[in-house]
């Protein structure tokens, strides 16, 4: 009863037609922590995140975000969330500042505070100098940081990142995490992240859940998970043991998702 929960999921299930993407997921994310959702393509990570962020309904099970029922109070839940999708989603036809200001308006940041909030969000991701250039001139890493600024401008209590560093070079990845950790240190924001990078999960996440075929197969701190496998084990080893080296495309993975991930990686160069 001691810890505040940012996300609380009970018995989540979602199917696309005959294909069960998420199959009875129970998940607790402690407020203020970084929680990593790992798993192979088609494991059900993105579907789980889409249900938590209200993009998909949860036909079975229940979700609470900071105690607010997602099924009943979608708009209130959305006010608590900042979301960065897998794709590069900044609008290239707008400047960096306009991209962030759009989300400040959509989150009803009061007019008097809006300009400063936008400037602060851009400064927090080190984009102030290029804020008035159109986003189409940004590099992949800069666009990712711009998307972070869009998600952060409303000062969310929960930041949801769907593979935020996919396709970025090590410097870009480090830069994105540096910014996230800076904001966390300042605000105590909770982070829920999916990633394919085991080293990233090991370094950045307080707790990790490994998903496979729609279910959570293992959960714990990185140290706890590695200890299950043995001395000197890495999270890659845990991943292999959990999935049994069986990466067959089954639950939930769709051609569009794979194509989208590849397109993002290509755009990031």
């Amino acid at each position, binding site marked *: 009863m001691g*810890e*505040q*929960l*940012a996300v*609380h999921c*009970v*018995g989540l299930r979602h199917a*696309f037609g005959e294909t069960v993407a998420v199959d009875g997921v129970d998940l*607790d994310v402690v*407020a203020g922590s970084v929680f990593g959702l790992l798993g192979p393509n088609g494991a059900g990570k993105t579907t789980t995140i*889409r249900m938590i*962020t*209200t*993009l*998909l309904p*949860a036909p*079975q*099970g*229940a979700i*609470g*975000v*900071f*105690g*607010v*029922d997602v*099924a009943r109070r979608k*708009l*209130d839940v*959305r*006010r*608590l*969330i900042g*979301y*960065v*999708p*897998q*794709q*590069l*989603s900044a*609008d290239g*036809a*707008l*400047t960096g500042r*306009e991209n962030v200001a*759009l*989300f400040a*308006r*959509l*989150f*009803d*940041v*009061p007019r008097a505070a809006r300009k400063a909030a936008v400037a602060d969000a851009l400064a927090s991701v080190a984009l102030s100098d290029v804020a008035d250039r*159109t986003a189409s001139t940004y590099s992949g890493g800069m666009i990712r940081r711009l998307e972070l600024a*869009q998600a952060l401008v*409303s*000062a*969310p*209590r929960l930041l949801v990142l769907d593979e935020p560093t996919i396709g970025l070079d090590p410097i870009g990845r480090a830069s994105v995490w540096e910014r996230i950790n800076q904001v966390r240190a300042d605000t105590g924001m909770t982070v829920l992240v999916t990633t394919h990078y085991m080293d990233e999960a090991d370094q950045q996440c307080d707790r990790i859940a490994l998903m496979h075929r729609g279910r959570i197969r293992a959960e714990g701190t990185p140290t706890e998970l590695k200890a299950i496998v043995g001395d000197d084990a890495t999270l890659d080893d845990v991943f292999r043991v959990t999935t049994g080296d069986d990466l067959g495309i089954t639950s939930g993975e769709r051609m569009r998702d794979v194509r*989208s991930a590849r*397109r993002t990686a290509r755009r990031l160069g």
Partner: protein
Amino acid sequence: MSAPLGVPLVASAEAPATHPRRFGFAGLVVARAGTMCLVELQKLRHDRTELITRAIQPALWLLIFGETFTRIRAIPTGNVPYLDYLAPGILAQSALFISIFYGIQIIWERDAGVLAKLLVTPTPRIALVTGKAFAAGVRALVQALVVLVLAAILGVGRTTKKIRLLAMCFVVILGSAFFCCLSITIAGLVLTRDRLMGIGQAITMPLFFGSNALYPVSLMPGWLRVINRVNPLGYEVDALRGLLIGTPAALGTDVVVLVLAAALMVTVASALLPRLAK
């Protein structure tokens, strides 16, 4: 069916958001529509290419078709010169061509993750669609102004009364909102850009020729009159013609039909939007 949350949470069920809701539902819809319109204007400010390229087609209609048919007097339009008669029709056509392909932008936004991000903001679906519809209206309006200037250069006898010009803006926005939402509805049904492009191209010309944009209703065969009667473009053209060149028009009926058609289509498009988010 949702199961009850099994574990009592420490966090309050009234967990405060940083920026809580400030508007009623109607205020939220207006605020979101304003935001979407602003974004559309910002995009136009950064890149005016589309504004110029989209002006070519109406210019050709007015210059070639309009001038030629004015000379040969093939279409009886009473005391009104054919070019004057045609100009409101081309104005409506120009707005139609912009808004009917707006669904392609929605599909692009879905593929780029923009739609998902918009749907995770505290914006009801209906407010998002209304915002998009009015944004299409603003873009069409800017285009309509270009057509109006072209028409003025060609000597079309137009109204200079501010109230009539404002009413024309309102009619263009309403018509564009309807066709934009029709496009989003089709996008929600077919889900892919290629299919939407094909359907858009297939319906655009029938909508245009099945209206009074080029010729008076009195010249239409019976079956075409029926199509014109259920075609919102016909009401848009009728209103624009009445406002711009002062021909007899059922303005009240035109506006009521356009408002109802736009409201209906906003509702249908909003219902189908979640299909695009899956």
